[in-house]
């Protein structure tokens, strides 16, 4: 099977910032992403869990973008502008994808 090199960027960010992030990504020309729910976690600002919560203040989502390697920097710049002042982590891994024409 034909595979093509790509970057897998995973951004774990506060739920309230999801719309801000995906908008910034779109504006930076990122054409695809997938949002996964997050149940809980722990970091420097303590532990949290979504259980029983109504408000969106304490909660995060994981946004996954697969992109061509040459577009990585544009994406990171856009993501960083949103994440900068906020709670969140950004993680990049090397990957291979099928159907590269989609990215």
């Amino acid at each position: 099977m034909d595979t093509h090199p790509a970057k897998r960027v995973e951004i774990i960010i506060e739920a309230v910032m999801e719309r801000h992030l995906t908008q910034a990504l779109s504006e930076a020309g990122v054409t695809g992403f997938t949002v996964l729910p997050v149940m809980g976690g722990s970091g420097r600002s303590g532990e949290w869990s979504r259980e029983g919560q109504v408000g969106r203040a304490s909660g995060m989502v994981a946004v996954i973008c697969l992109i061509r390697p040459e577009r990585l920097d544009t994406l990171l710049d856009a993501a960083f502008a949103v994440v900068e002042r906020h709670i969140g982590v950004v993680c990049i891994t090397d990957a291979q994808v099928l159907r590269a024409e989609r990215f």
Partner: protein
Amino acid sequence: MPGIFQLAADNLVSPIILSFLLGLIAALGRSDLNFPEAIAKGLSIYLLFAIGFKGGVSVSGHGLDGKLVAALGAGVMLSLSLPVAAFALLRAMARLSVTDAAAIAAHYGSISIVTFVAATSLLAGQGIAAEGYMVAVAAAMEAPAIVSALWIVVARGGGGKRMSADLWREILLNGSIVLLIGSFVIGWMTGQGGLNEIGGLFVEPFKGVLCLFLLDMGLVAGRGLRTNRSTLSLRLVAFGIVMPVVGALAGLIFGIVLGLSQGGVVLMMVLSASASYIAVPAAMRVALPEANPALSLTLSLGVTFPFNLTLGIPLYMAAAEIAAGGNF
């Protein structure tokens, strides 16, 4: 004033309060009892719709007595000014950064709709009437406190985002505000006929749903207290009890000046005394990300909410009664 204590004692053994305590104790004792997030949200949608709708129906029945606009204005003014008082108190009592103090202040200027609902239930149980449009006042008080707090931060050079058009939209079209106002309008438009149609879901089962919701809030509050114990200084806890009393006093004055009914005065006090834990926390994460979210949420949900629920509301009811009797 034995009445207050009796009322407080009666209040304490209602299923509503006991459900909250059950949740609190379970979470502090590290039980794994918990509500799925979707259920908690579902319950809150039900409560907001029910309270908004019934408020609207009541307005459609009694008619607008001309005070609605004045009451809305008063609510906005309270929501705008209480954060200033809260901020001053916080800076005096606890040594917080400008940002943290302002974020907490925003919570206390805004309102907690569950506290409002619990007070409504208690009033209904006592046969004390209140203006149906107080729900609209509640909705009006949700957001202005946010503006006020951001203004404080800018004025004090604490950084913070200026209010962009986008942020305005996000705050004003917050789901809970839209649902509350929307269902209020639906209740107003459909009136008693509408209530007859859908009352089977929103009237009889209401208090039971409130119980379950308070059980969940107890669980969340308890877990918050357990995890963030260290962030709460004694001074902050004191603030979490003093501030609602200050707010209630302001609400009392406004309520009397407006000429609200005794129940209406109580609700105005409760709105002013209560602190947001849904709309404002989310707005603060967007607008003041540097503020520590654990601080304000733990204080609002873990200290002020239980205080209002158990002692505050009976106290405010007694105060409103004394004021109504003219015995200042």
